[in-house]
Structures are given as C-alpha cells and as structure tokens.
C-alpha cells in the first residue's frame, strides 16, 4: 500500500519540473529577477523589462510547455521569427511619433549616421575574435543601432540562430541606456559644452508633416529595399497620425495595437532566455560586443557633434550627438537629463528628438546597406 502511494507520488513528481531543474535555470531566473528589479526599483524601461524578466523566469521553470510548440510563448516567438512583430512595432512607433523636430532642423540628421560607428566597431571586433562569420558579426553589430525591432529584423535575415542573444542584448542595453550613456557623454564633453543652449527650431506646418511619410517611404523603398518593410510601416503609422482624419486608426496603432505587440514582443524575447540555449560562452561575447557597440555609438555621436561644431558659427550642444543612436525616445531623454544637470534651464529634449529620430533612419540605412553588401534580400 505504502509502496503504491510512494510510486504514485514519485510519478507525480516526475510530471513536475522539480527533477529536471538545473543550476543554469536557477541562474537565469535570477537574471530575470534582476531585470524585474531594475524595472520596478530603478524604473528602467518597465514596459520592456517587466515582460522580458517575467518570461525569462517562467521559461526557466522546467515542465512548463509555454515555450514548446503549442505554448503561447512559442507562438509569440513565431511572430518574431516570421518578422511580423517588428514591422507592427514600427507602425505603432510611427503613429506615436512627431517627426517635426527632425524636419525642422535637417542639419542635425547627420548625427543619426555619426552615432552608428558602434555598429562597425562591434562587427570588426566580432570578426577579430574568430568566433563569428561575417553575417553573424553583422547581426551582432546591429545591436549598436539601439533599435530593437531593427536588430530583430536584421538578425532574422543574417543569423537567425543568434536571435535570443541579440534581442536580449539590444533590449536590455536600450533599457539600461540611462546607465550606459552618461559616463561616456561626460568623458567626451566639458561642462561648458554640456551647458550650450539651443536656439528655437522653426515651426513645421501640417502640410510638411503630411508629405514627410510619403517622401521617406518612396526614398527608402527605392534605395533600401531590404529594410523597406520596417520603414514603410513606420511611415504608414506616421501618415495615419498626421492626416488628423483617422484619429481612431492612429490611436489604435499607437495605443491598443502597440500595447498588444509590446506584450507579445517582450514575452517572446524573454522566452528565448532558457538556460540550455542562452548560457553559452558565445552569449557572453555577444553581450560584451553589444555593450561595446552601444558605448562606441554614443561616443561617435558626441564626437560627430563636436566635429560639426568646428564648422558651425552657431554651436550645438554635443550631447545631442549621443541621441543619434536611435532608441526613441530613451536616448533623447538621457541627453536631456545630462544637460539639465549642468544647466537647470536647458531643456534639450525636443532638440535631441531630431537626431534621435534620425538615428532610427540611420540604423535602418546601415542595416539595409549591410544586408545588400552581404547579398541578403
């Protein structure tokens, strides 16, 4: 009788995950908990980190079928694999974004390209390590674009097997930009430079804002077909916003749809952090290279702004260069906060949004050229 009872209990235990939990699983659960701590206690991008952290913890509980075929997290990840989610995120971003700051001051757009040297530093270092092929190095480099959907998009084309590591690195570093960027920005600028106040930008008319998405969609589809799906959706969302006639559609894209996609995306990214796939030496190297790419991009943006100042009569605040790294609006906010600490009357946010938005195009253009050079369509 007792033997039967014990046998029954053991078979019950077998059906749970208790017997197959590993140290790796426990380690990754702690990683997930740290992400949640950063979101809740430090308020670092809770919209991203809460979903990623939660899914990371759950995915490392053995026995759960959430990440197996048939599980909901599995299908969330399929949305990424099939490159459905990144364009939808861009649709929402477009519907949320006022491109006015970029249209009003085109001279600062170049910072959106300057702040992407980090991508190329990471590519070269990845190749120097001898651990990665050129396509893998390209996918790792794109982490430095600080644009999650673009990183996913390019990685799915170049090195889909590295998606978990690259997606996690991109989103985690984006959330941690308030920690990563300021030391680099302060190191490369003087107090006087950080205190430079910007002059008022010109107002942008409604007609300009309506024409903008059409012009950009045409240019990108013409010159950069590999990344056209993302930028086209960005411009579609922006057009819905700016015409003012379809407020319901614009609001749906910017709010309800965006919220659903954000939940799906963060859960999908977190669910890729299972210990057996994630805890490898390559992951550590990729995370390291991703960090180098972010630091390199921030530095090159600031240096780019300082080079611009050599040729300008009206000096710009070099902190604006760091916003060129994309990651809207986190990088612009970081530039604003750092400037505000030096001069409490220096509100840089709207000025930083210009290079920040240009950074989105900078990443897309870099990614598109990279795909073309590597012969990937």
């Amino acid at each position: 009788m007792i033997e039967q009872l014990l046998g029954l209990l053991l078979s019950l235990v077998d059906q749970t995950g208790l017997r197959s939990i590993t140290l790796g699983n426990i380690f990754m659960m702690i990683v997930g908990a740290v992400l949640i701590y950063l979101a809740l206690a430090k308020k670092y991008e809770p919209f991203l980190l809460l979903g990623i952290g939660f899914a990371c913890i759950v995915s490392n509980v053995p026995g759960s079928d959430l990440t197996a075929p048939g599980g909901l997290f599995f299908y969330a990840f399929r949305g990424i694999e099939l490159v459905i989610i990144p364009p939808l995120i861009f649709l929402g971003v477009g519907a949320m974004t006022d491109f006015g700051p970029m249209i009003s001051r085109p001279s600062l757009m170049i910072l959106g390209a300057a702040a992407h040297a980090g991508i190329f530093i990471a590519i070269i270092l990845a190749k120097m390590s001898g651990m990665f092929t050129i396509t893998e190095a390209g996918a790792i480099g794109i982490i430095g674009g600080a644009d999650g959907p673009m990183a996913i998009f390019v990685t799915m084309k170049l090195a889909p097997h590295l998606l978990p590591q690259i997606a996690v690195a991109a989103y985690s570093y984006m959330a941690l930009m308030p920690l990563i960027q300021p030391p680099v920005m302060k190191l490369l600028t003087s107090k006087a430079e950080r205190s430079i106040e910007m002059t008022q930008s010109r107002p942008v008319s409604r007609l300009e804002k309506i024409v903008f998405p059409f012009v950009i969609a045409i240019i990108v589809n013409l010159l950069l077909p590999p990344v056209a799906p993302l930028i086209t959706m960005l411009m579609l969302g922006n057009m819905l916003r700016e015409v003012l006639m379809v407020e319901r559609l614009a609001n749906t894209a910017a709010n309800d749809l965006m919220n659903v996609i954000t939940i799906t995306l963060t859960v999908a990214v977190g669910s890729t952090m299972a210990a057996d796939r994630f805890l490898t030496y390559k992951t550590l190297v990729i995370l390291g290279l991703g960090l180098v790419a972010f630091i390199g991009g921030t530095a090159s943006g600031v240096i780019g702004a300082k080079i611009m100042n050599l040729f300008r009569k009206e000096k710009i605040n070099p902190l604006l260069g760091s916003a060129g790294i994309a990651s809207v609006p986190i990088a612009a906010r970081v530039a604003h906060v750092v400037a505000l600490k030096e001069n409490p009357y220096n509100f840089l946010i709207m000025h930083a949004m210009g290079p920040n938005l240009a950074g989105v195009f900078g990443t897309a253009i870099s990614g598109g050229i990279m795909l073309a050079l590597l012969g990937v369509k």
Partner: protein
Amino acid sequence: MNILPMTVPDTLEGAYVLSIVDFFLSIVIIWAISLVLYLFPFLNKLGNVTDESLKSGH
C-alpha cells in the same frame, strides 16, 4: 559590360570593407535625406492645410 553582383568576403578584411562602405554610404544617404528636408519649407508656398480643415473633413 556585365557587372557581377559581389558580396563581402567572410574575412577580417571583409569586415573592414563592410564597415567602411556601410558607414560612408549611411552618411551619404542620411545627408541626402536631410537635403530633401531642406526643401520642405517650400511646400508651404503651395498652400496651407489647417488642422481644423482636416478634422472637419469627415
């Protein structure tokens, strides 16, 4: 003349070439887009679209 499509070789030199060409072309394309944006104020000479006229249009 037939130009054969070429891709970057999977070497360290390839990484250098990819990086330099990509960075340079990114700057050129972004600069070209900014030039287009410099023309945008001229759109306002074509006419004026007010928010009110758009909002009341449906």
